[in-house]
């Protein structure tokens, strides 16, 4: 009898538990409408080897992706995954749990480095895989990989591996410098003891134009991007300043004051001969910037009072004012982003100088800097996703051009002005 009772009790217990199970028989739906906005969280964990090369690769990856534009790098302190066990693979849920949408992995072996990009939505199959020979220049290899990652997500290559030129101020003198966009490998371009200002990269990246007082007059010179003996391109009486190359590299817009008043001119990049005069106004017209489509030139003029940004056809004609905020706006530069008509410039807001962008189509303004010192002379990255600028007495900084991503990152310390960002590196 005891056996019967025990068996019966077990069976009854089972039935009872099934009867209590809360199986869904119906439900309700809430329609949620989210908006795509914000940055894409991507993780760049260091390979488990943890040696100097592994550290450098992880550091460069993290830096590149943090300034790339639409990304934010997940804090390594939050990682839950066992990197040693994972190796080049991935345990998706552990990365999802720390909020990562993408994870960049790599492994160095046999003189090569294999990179993998995983997307959490695609599980443990890598979305992108690249292998490069690992020479002495580890940074360049990582920049190439990060460019591929940015291209995978945005369709546009990244700007990693590009260079920035700027004027470094010394005691009573100033020199043209160039460096990697992340502040590494800085070198002098202008080898003279005079004052050298306002560098401008040629579209090919092979040359830099700048104004030098080496023969007392502010003349325009061109030198190789690596430095070397400069060639005088424009030595008109008075100012020969603020060079801006046409997109095809055949012409240069600049300010000449040969007739007394500073005006915008276009000269041939090959011999410095004047092609045409763009402005003709009794006001001061300076700081030309050629649009990426080659059709327009933005410049600064005080013809309506204080200095404001104007845009004129590259063939000349009447100029239209495009900046209307405040009473002091200078140093315009065009975004190279395709399909957009955006300029960045320096604006005076109260007692401080800040960088803003202005969409000429939508009139939408984005503030890039605020309450962070005196900022001036912006320059867009080759893909338009970042802006470099000089901060008085502090150095050269990089910020995301959409205004997201928090504070700007310092890439060069010192007294700098006249920042210009070179073209994208060639593979």
């Amino acid at each position, binding site marked *: *009898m005891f*056996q*019967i009772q025990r*068996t*019966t009790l077990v*069976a*009854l217990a*089972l*039935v009872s538990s*099934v009867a209590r*199970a809360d*199986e*869904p*028989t*119906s*439900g*309700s*739906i*809430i*329609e*949620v*409408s*989210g*908006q*795509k*906005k*914000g*940055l*894409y*969280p991507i993780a760049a964990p260091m390979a488990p080897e943890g040696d100097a090369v592994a550290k450098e690769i992880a550091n460069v990856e993290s830096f590149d992706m943090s300034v790339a534009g*639409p990304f934010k790098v997940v804090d390594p302190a939050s990682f839950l995954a066992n990197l040693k066990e994972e190796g080049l693979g991935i345990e998706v849920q552990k990365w*999802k*749990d720390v*909020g990562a*949408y993408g994870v960049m992995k790599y492994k160095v072996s046999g003189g090569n480095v294999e990179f993998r990009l995983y*997307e*959490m*939505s*695609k599980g443990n199959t890598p979305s992108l895989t690249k292998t490069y020979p690992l020479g002495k220049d580890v940074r360049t290899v990582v920049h190439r990989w990060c460019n591929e990652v940015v291209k995978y*997500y*945005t369709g546009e290559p990244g700007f990693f591996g590009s260079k920035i030129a700027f004027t470094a101020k010394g005691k009573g003198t100033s020199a043209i410098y160039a460096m990697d966009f992340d502040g590494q490998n800085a070198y002098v371009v202008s080898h003279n003891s005079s004052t050298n200002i306002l560098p401008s990269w040629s579209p090919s990246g092979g040359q830099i134009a700048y104004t030098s007082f080496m023969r007392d007059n502010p003349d325009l010179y061109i030198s190789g991007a690596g430095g070397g003996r400069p060639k005088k391109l424009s030595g008109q009486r008075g100012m020969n300043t603020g060079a801006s190359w046409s997109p095809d590299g055949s012409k240069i817009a600049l300010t000449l004051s040969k007739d007394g008043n500073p005006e915008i001119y276009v000269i041939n990049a090959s011999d410095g001969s004047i092609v045409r005069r763009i402005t003709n106004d009794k006001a001061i017209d300076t700081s030309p910037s050629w649009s990426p489509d080659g059709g327009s030139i933005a410049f600064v003029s005080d013809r309506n009072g204080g200095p404001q940004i104007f845009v004129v056809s590259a063939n000349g004609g009447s100029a239209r004012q495009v900046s209307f905020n405040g009473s002091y706006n200078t140093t315009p530069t065009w975004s190279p982003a395709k399909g957009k008509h955006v300029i960045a410039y320096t604006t005076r807001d109260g007692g401080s100088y800040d960088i803003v962008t202005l969409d000429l189509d939508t009139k939408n303004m984005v503030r890039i800097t605020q309450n962070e010192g005196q900022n001036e002379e912006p320059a867009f990255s080759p893909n338009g996703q970042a802006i470099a600028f000089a901060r008085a007495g502090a150095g050269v900084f990089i910020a995301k051009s959409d205004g997201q991503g928090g504070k700007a990152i310092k890439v060069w310390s010192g007294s700098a002005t006249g920042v210009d960002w070179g073209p994208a590196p060639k593979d």
Partner: protein
Amino acid sequence: MKDAEIQTISLIGTVVLTAALFAPVVWLVPKAEAHEPELKEMETIEASLAYRKTPQKQPQKRLKAADPVEKPEGVSRDENKKVDKKDEEKKPKKDDQDPLAKFKHPQDDDSPTGKPVTDIGQFNGDEKGFADETKGDPWMQQLAADLNYTPPEIAKGNGVPVGCVRLNADGKISDTKFFTRTDDDLQTAAEAAIAGLKKIRNDKPVEVPTHLLKITTRWLCFKFNVRPS
């Protein structure tokens, strides 16, 4: 009967009874699993959030009509004649007193007792309206708001994941599940939203209003759409 016979009958009885009890169990379990609700069978709840637009002056509710001019009652036609104060000061009889007076509160009438929290149809600063005009139950709206579903700007995918939660009466989330998976970045964003909601609601539970218990104790699902920017 001998002991052996008793044991045999007992064993047979046990087997029969066990079979009789287990058969429905085996049959019912897959049946119950098969009864997962089809999305099309689910009830749709309006809990969309109202987003702040250009502030507009909404029709204002009249809280109280202007007090009429009091006129003394009486047969006299002389409007300036004062009413006998004795009548005014006369205390009401016990039977005349409102027996429910002690249960009434100053707020029971529509007299302005202070600045109203908000006007009908206006927003309270949380980008979440809570008047009738803004639709939806406030508790549901807050739940949807706590989801904070914001896929990154470069998120890939066009799918519409459907993720569900079940809540206890105390407001804690007991279970989560995805009825529709899209295997794209929007799925990752939806999973992050559900995980975030679970953390928020389990750390600081918001008790489920009684009238919603019937809904929240079953699968309460979120259809993750993307609003054009």
